[in-house]
């Protein structure tokens, strides 16, 4: 069992995680709840490796197990996320209604370029891009389950149906204006 590298994460975070674990101890699937709440508390909405190490040590779980769970679920981020998240559906229904153009439009609008990800032929790949100023994260998802409203875009956890390049551009402008 790895020794907890105490002191490698802030004390307040340690206290927060200890409480989470204490509440959930012994329950099946406790790890998921702990990781979710920990990520939500993080300023950049992600799970740094040091945090995962701390959780592993406190929950007495192998590091590999924690890493496996954190990478299995798309919900968990191991990279810092931008302040605003734009999630574009690349499911079949949205694809046929032009979601690739939406994705490319958003990438160009935010200055993320079109290199990497889908242009490499990895169509189904999960794409995750964050702007250099940490303001925006663009990601793709396989399906929101809102196919009747295709193409669907999620802006900061709000679903926008029948999205067009123009409406997506307006959403980005609104967020920028509100800063």
């Amino acid at each position, binding site marked *: 069992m790895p020794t907890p590298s105490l002191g490698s994460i802030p004390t307040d975070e340690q206290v927060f995680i200890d409480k989470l674990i204490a509440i959930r101890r012994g329950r099946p699937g406790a790890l998921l709840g702990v990781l979710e709440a920990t990520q939500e508390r993080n300023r950049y909405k992600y799970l740094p*490796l040091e945090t995962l190490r701390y959780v592993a040590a406190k929950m007495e779980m*192998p*590091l*590999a*197990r924690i890493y*496996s769970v954190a*990478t*299995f679920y798309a919900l968990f981020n191991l990279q810092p996320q931008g302040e605003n998240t734009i999630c574009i559906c690349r499911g079949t229904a949205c694809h046929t209604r032009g979601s690739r153009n939406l994705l490319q439009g958003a990438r160009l609008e935010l200055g993320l370029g079109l290199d990497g990800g889908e242009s490499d032929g990895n169509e189904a790949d999960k794409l995750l891009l964050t702007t250099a100023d940490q303001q925006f994260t663009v990601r793709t998802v396989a399906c929101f389950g809102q196919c009747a409203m295709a193409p669907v875009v999620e802006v900061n956890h709000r679903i926008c149906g029948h999205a067009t390049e123009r409406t997506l551009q307006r959403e980005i402008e609104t967020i920028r204006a509100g800063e």
Partner: protein
Amino acid sequence: MPQKKISIRIDGELISALEGQTILQAAKANGKYIPTLCDLDGLTSVGACRICLVEVSGSERLFPACTTPIQEGMSVTTNSPKLTRYRRISVELLLIERNHVCAVCVSNGHCELQTMASALGIGTVGLAYNFPKLSIDMSHPRFVLDHNRCILCTRCVRVCAELEGAHMWELTSRGIHARIVSEMNEQWGKATSCTSCGKCVHACPTGALAEKGWAVEEMVKKIDAVTSLVHRRGAQV
């Protein structure tokens, strides 16, 4: 409490087996062969390879023998043209998923995947190869991990977690991106929980995990050493 005995038919022959056993366990106990790549004596069954699919009369579905518990009066068929077809597809899909180049593999001639492919009569693969770009981890002083030869059977994961108790291996990501990973995606040589026992290497059915210092065709896995350990310890899984 003694376990209840129940009767099932395997390929028409009536056998008695213990309640709670899987089809594969019952078949093995009675000397019946069901092909499999991911099953290993003494480890939990995960149903990863889909080679052990069998027909159960009364159902159109095929069942993985390693994870399906037996039921009273069950009639199982372990070999049929339909099963061979499905097994062949499963092995072909394993072959296209990574870069399995037997000619340059340390396990050539001693590889369970290769043996399975030839037993199923796979000479050529009718599907397009993926040719993924994968890494090789040479960081461990004695062993090497080659993702190109991995079939994700998770024997290494289970043998490390259940038999050695180190649980250094796990699967990361999903689907086509799934990989075997040591600890938190660190190099094997840097993993502190690895005891260098080599059980994962000898449990591995292909050349994905191998000892260093062997040339092509020279890596012979001592799989019996791993399974006999289970029996000597009397482990019940």
